[in-house]
């Protein structure tokens, strides 16, 4: 009796469960792929089959002839080919080109090379060079705000303000009455033109970023020397240790972090370039680094080239110089350097896209041109 009830209960439970949850396991019907067919006639089918049979006969016809083996490859010349080639043709009257032309084969008189040629006049300054020399003596740019005609003087009550503000008018209906303010003119309307170079910069005089930790080699040496000298002058008996002045130590650390230490004046200040900005510069130079005309020896030469950039990212041509090299000969180093130099000038003609607020970081660059991946493998 119990067994029957258990079986019945289990069966009902299974049935109810399947009705409730069966949809979860329901498989979706697979899409049916339909292919369009076309009906062809018996003649067309026969023609199609005939066309497919043809390559067999073609391959037999176009079987490549065995190439004749050159004597130099080691095969002894086949006797039957020799007589064929030796069949004396009816000796024609020697054509003009059959007879060796001795005079034309004789070498030319040795060309005399005169290394000294008239010295060229000094070329005119390259006025179209985008980079360069002119930036060494910067000239304040003329302000675009200068009009050919005198500007009408502003109203006496107008006065420059840092932020241009519109005059506040009293509301006619409702609302709170705003405190009346005087209208201020835009700064451009100032009667006196202050160029960008003359304008006092709002930027901090010193960067908030910490300077590089490592001092220059000369600084280290000087420090070591002074320490050495101090040690020699140090009394034999150390004075009793005093309680450290922790406040001054913290102050010193902050002062060092804020770059108030003048021992590393050449270190760049400001935020460093991000990896993406460096990659963008790398890609920009790579596009013009053409190694196609380099010799194989120059392709084994790595050169380090230093260049200074103007604030608009253009290379100063006169600043491009070779810093270091590895591999190759002096001639290949020269070729590699010239190619690198050409790349910098070409792709920097319009200025490298670099963040102007980080100019201090990229005004001097050392580029290592390593052609290892470009070598002929």
């Amino acid at each position, binding site marked *: 009796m119990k067994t029957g009830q258990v079986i019945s209960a289990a069966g009902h439970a299974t049935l109810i469960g399947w009705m409730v949850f069966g949809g979860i396991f329901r498989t979706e019907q697979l899409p049916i792929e339909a292919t369009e067919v076309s009906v062809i006639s018996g003649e067309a089918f026969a023609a199609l089959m005939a066309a497919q049979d043809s390559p067999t006969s073609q391959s037999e016809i176009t079987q490549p*002839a065995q*190439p004749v083996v*050159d004597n*130099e*490859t*080691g095969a*002894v*010349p086949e006797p039957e080919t*020799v007589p064929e*080639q*030796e069949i004396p*043709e009816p000796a024609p009257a020697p054509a003009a080109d059959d007879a*060796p*032309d*001795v005079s*034309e*084969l*004789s070498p*030319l*008189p040795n*060309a*005399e090379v005169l290394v*000294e*040629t008239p010295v*060229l*006049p000094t*070329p005119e300054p390259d006025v179209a060079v985008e980079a360069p020399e002119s930036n060494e003596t910067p000239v304040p740019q003329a302000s675009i705000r200068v009009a050919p005609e005198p500007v009408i003087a502003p109203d006496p009550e107008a006065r420059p303000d840092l932020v241009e503000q519109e005059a506040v008018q009293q509301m006619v209906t409702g609302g709170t009455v705003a405190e009346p303010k005087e209208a201020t003119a835009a700064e451009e309307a100032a009667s006196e033109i202050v160029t960008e170079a003359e304008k006092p910069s709002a930027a901090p005089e010193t960067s908030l970023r*910490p*300077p*590089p*930790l490592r001092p220059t080699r000369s600084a280290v040496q000087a420090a070591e020397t002074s320490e050495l000298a101090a040690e020699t002058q140090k009394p034999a008996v150390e004075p009793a240790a005093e309680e450290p002045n*922790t406040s001054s*130590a913290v102050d010193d*650390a902050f002062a060092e972090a804020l770059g108030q230490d003048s021992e590393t004046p050449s*270190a*760049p200040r400001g935020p460093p*370039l991000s990896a993406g900005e460096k990659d963008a510069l*790398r890609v920009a130079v*790579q596009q*013009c680094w*053409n*190694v*196609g*005309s380099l*010799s194989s020896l*120059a392709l084994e030469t790595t050169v380090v080239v230093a260049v200074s950039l103007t604030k608009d990212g253009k290379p100063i041509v006169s600043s491009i110089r070779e810093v270091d090299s590895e591999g190759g000969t002096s001639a*290949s180093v*020269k070729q590699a350097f010239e190619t690198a130099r*050409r790349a910098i000038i*070409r792709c920097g003609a319009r200025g490298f896209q670099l963040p102007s607020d980080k100019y201090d970081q*990229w005004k*001097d*660059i*050392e580029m*290592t*041109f390593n*052609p290892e*991946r*470009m070598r002929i*493998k």
Partner: protein
Amino acid sequence: MMVRIFTTLMALMMTATLSLAQQGPLRIEITEGVIEPLPFATPDFVAENGSSTEMGTELARVVAADLQNTGLFREIPARAYISNVTDFGSAIQYPDWKAINAQALVTGAVNVSGNSLTVKFRLYDIFSGAELGNGLQFQGTTEGWRRMAHKVSDAVYSRITGEGGYFDSRVVFVSEMGPKNKRQKRLAVMDYDGAGVKYLTDSRSLVLAPRFSPTGDRVLYTSYETGFPRIYVLDVGSVQHRVLESGEGSISFAPRFSPNGQTVVYSQATGSNTDIYTMDISSGRSTRLTSAPSIETAPSYSPDGNSIVFESDRSGAQQLYIMSANGGEAKRISFGQGRYGTPVWSPRGDLVAFTKQSKGRFHIGVMRIDGSEERLLTASFLDEGPTWSPNGRVIMFHRETQGAGGRSTLYSVDITGRNLRPVRTPEGGSDPSWSPLQK
């Protein structure tokens, strides 16, 4: 105590921060460049007298063709010029040339006086705004005006690429005319670019495998003049030739000069065995270098003359080997699938060019002398007979097309595998051998 720890921690944090800061100038490494022809301009050379105008144009065209044929340079057409060069001594307007992206500018002047020809040239690096090297002047005869142009090209090529040129050189080859089963073959010599073809022999006897001497004044070749293949040496200046003595009852072929030009290395077949011999040209004395029962042939000296690369089937398959120039044990350098043959040592000494037959196709390839870095440069129905340019940058070979009417044509290819191009000859050509640069 706590204050001291705090101070120390602060100092450590600042140290870590500072260590991340940039030291000195910004440093980047450039490892990926581009490989593209360098744009250059070659205006017509300035005629210094009325009779030189045409010559000035022709000279500039040959120089431009020389440079462009290398695949390393691309000529900017004259119609793109903003300014032109009308006076050889005038200053260069760099902005005008920079505007059309010319990176190099070749200017020249020509003066024809009777049979005398004077050619001057200067090379400018446009983006540097300076002359690249000093100007040069060549003097010669009007008949040799093409050599003048080639010499200018050699100088330009050398200054830009840093390696020697190869334009003022010649190629001796077998000129082929007629169908395959009745082909006439003659020795011919031409400029490297296929110009000025001259014939050294007639077509009465079959000639094979000419090879220039290191000085370019003699040619070794194999001829069936007596009915059997014998090695001959031909003086290019006088076109006189003589047979080099070889063993009686044997067949000699595949000769090649040693680097000093005093010795000839060649193959000699006796019965079914072929070995490599050397012969002193002055005394005619021969020395046998190999004695294996297999076929050893196609020997080629290293540039220093101390080693010889050759092909042999001693391992059961045709492979490349290197041995001392005095003979002795040989070292196998090729191990790939297929058959390797006709090895030729590079003038630089670092590579060996060869012919490879694999899977029904022929290839011209190069490998280092230890067999490493094998690189196949071509692939066709039949490529064979590589020869090196004097600077070791270009390989010339011949390619034969399929079928009874197939034609054999000379081709050249850069050792990078780029710039594969046919060398135009009046007739078909095979077995090229490149001369050294002419003096």
